[in-house]
């Protein structure tokens, strides 16, 4: 399947009038005829759009998972829906990184005896406050 929107130079959210002008401006006769058949009828466009969205998702997933040269990713689908690799790293690595980070924080909290030191700090704070009150009220 080809990405007609990309080939016509419009976005998938384009209005009907935008599509009509883009089709008129298109110089490729076969593409023009196909685009007119598919995009100018509402029910057809809806069906096309649903598949288009799925293929965009798959294109993104393939780009992120390094499958843009898979053996099943060929022809016009691969031509039109392949995305350049982006900067998002592997979700799994990211998850592992975050879990590791959380574990380190937790361990540090436990090593410094977090709950007791918190309670101690609170007690010191209260004592200081009382002392300050005494000084000021005298």
């Amino acid at each position: 399947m080809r990405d007609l929107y990309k080939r016509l130079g419009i976005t998938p959210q384009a209005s009907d009038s935008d599509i009509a002008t883009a089709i008129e401006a298109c110089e490729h006769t076969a593409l023009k005829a196909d685009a007119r058949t598919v995009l100018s009828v509402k029910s057809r466009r809806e069906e096309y759009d649903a598949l288009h969205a799925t293929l965009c998702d798959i294109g993104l997933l393939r780009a992120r998972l390094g499958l843009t040269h898979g053996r099943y990713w060929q022809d016009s689908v691969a031509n039109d829906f392949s995305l350049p690799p982006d900067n998002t790293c592997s979700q799994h690595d990211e998850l592992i990184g975050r879990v590791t980070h959380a574990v380190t924080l937790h361990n540090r909290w436990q090593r410094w005896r977090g709950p007791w030191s918190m309670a101690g700090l609170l007690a010191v704070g209260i004592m200081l406050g009382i002392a300050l009150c005494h000084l000021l009220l005298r």
Partner: protein
Amino acid sequence: MPIARFSPFELLLLKSRNQADTAGLLLLAWVLASKGHLADADRRRLTELARDFRHGHELEPIIEIAAQQDLGAIQLAAEVMQKDCCGEQAYPFLRQVIALAVADGKLASAHHHILRFLADLLGVSPSEFAQLFAEVAGKEFANPDDPSRTGYWQAKERHRQQQEHQQQERQRSQDRHSRERHSHERYSSGQQHHQRSGTGGSQRQHRHHSTQEPPPGDRTRRALAILGLEPGASRSEIRKAYRRLAQLHHPDRFFAEGEAMVANASMRFQKIKKAYDYLMQAS
């Protein structure tokens, strides 16, 4: 330094007893949700499938995540699957996916592309996957249709018209049957009259026969149907269709596949040729 919050699927994955099973369930739910909506029947099917999985947590959150089409979660699931079950280990999972995808009878185009993606993801080569698909679905793994071409919509329109036509035909034949029965009853009662009065029977019998004859143009229509054309096709269209079909069904093409196939093909070829000859004479 604060950590970004864990997404619902990440939490599920951390809680899960078997990460690959959780990820597999999400991908199965994604396959179901890619049709656009999750019906109750789909949920029930997924719940049944989930009994064999060792995920050890609720299924409902997974269905919700899949219904939202959360790409981050799907990517994470795909990575876990890629890591944990690759190649032959993925066969049971792929079987389940194929069974889900063809549960409605016909494989939707979105499912075509998703199945291809999963096969690539799990490192199953096209030949192996096609074999797997044939085993599970009982038919060949064909190439997906292309809705960006005019031909797809024309074929769809034609299919719809044919179905309508068949329905009309069925309706008409039912009508005819009931009318025949009616006229038959009338005829038999007429015969009784005839026995009594002695005239008028043969005329009625004649009319009875004339209702059974096909209407004019029926043969043309049938011949056109053999060539895969609609009524009102022009001469050049007929010729084009004939050439295409003749090439497709020529007995010489089936020489390598044995005598039975050749005989079959020659029968088909004869039929096509007869239809073409008749149409060329008639028009």
